């Protein structure tokens, strides 16, 4: 699906800007790709190591379905301090799910990474949007990961009652 989208877009660019325009974008994106590859590798390794070294029963206790507000806060804090971009956040989030974190805590982590994580804010938002807007936006966003995680947990136990009870028995 993405391949089709890309092909159509590339064809449109070619019609508008000719071969030069297509090649410009290609070289730019290739260099971008080369730049992020090492980070993708770092993210994959980070995810794999974390899922290996985290004690499963501790994770499911502190981030599992019964972890309460504390689990959501831990998820939020974890997302906020996690270094790197999507190439780190998603493998790590996936690892957390695999070792016993519930959807709520993982949602808190992903939303926290995306809204208050410093990586993107420092690298992109601060220079482009300015300090005032960025800080102000982050302050507004602070409560949201916990709320999203709580909402996620609330909805999850109602949509998927079975897995939740199974976890309770463990």
């Amino acid at each position: 699906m993405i391949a089709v989208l890309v092909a159509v877009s590339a064809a449109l660019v070619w019609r508008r800007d000719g071969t030069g325009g297509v090649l410009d974008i290609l070289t730019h994106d290739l260099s971008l790709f080369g730049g992020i590859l090492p980070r993708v590798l770092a993210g994959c390794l980070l995810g794999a190591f974390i899922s290996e070294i985290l004690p499963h029963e501790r994770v499911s206790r502190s981030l599992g379905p019964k972890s309460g507000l504390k689990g959501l806060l831990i998820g939020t804090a974890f997302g906020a301090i996690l270094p790197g971009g999507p190439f780190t956040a998603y493998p790590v989030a996936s690892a957390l799910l695999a070792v016993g974190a519930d959807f709520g805590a993982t949602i808190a982590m992903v939303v926290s990474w995306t809204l208050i994580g410093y990586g993107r804010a420092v690298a992109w938002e601060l220079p482009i949007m300015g300090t005032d807007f960025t800080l102000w936006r982050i302050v507004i966003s602070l409560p949201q990961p916990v709320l999203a995680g709580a909402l996620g947990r609330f909805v999850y136990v109602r949509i998927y009652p079975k897995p939740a009870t199974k976890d309770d028995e463990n």
Partner: protein
Amino acid sequence: MSAALLIDILLWGSVFGVGLIAFRRGPPVFKASLREGSMDFINIVPRIALGVIGSGYIAAIIPQEVITGWLGPDSGWLGVATAVVAGAATPGGPVIGFSIGTVALKSGGGVPQVVAYVVAWALFAFQRVILWEIPFMPARFVWFRCAVSVPFPFVAAAIAMVIGKP
């Protein structure tokens, strides 16, 4: 560039740190996770190649004025809703998302609308969801997370309306 370098150092520092912990659990643990991480990497590279190399083309054909025109300060909640859709539909990386936000702000966009735009972009920019989140995470989790996140750009805009400008 220095910020990017700092992030790289932090990133690889973390990899090294957790790698060291894994190694102290014993070389088999270390080797197994090293192999698993590398396999993930090899599997993910083609999808990312397509996304990153393709995103420039997608971004090139969506005119920025179309997005910024809808976010005026008088647009109210309709403007906020538009901003949310626009944020989710914005292609490309952070440069494009934040640049459009800046342009919207400078060309007279309302602050709550721009906040809603930036938050919506952060939460569900379709390209990031398709390119990064779905390959790495269980699809069920991704849809669930997106659905649960829908109210939050609106919450952010509401807070922005209440507390005023930065």
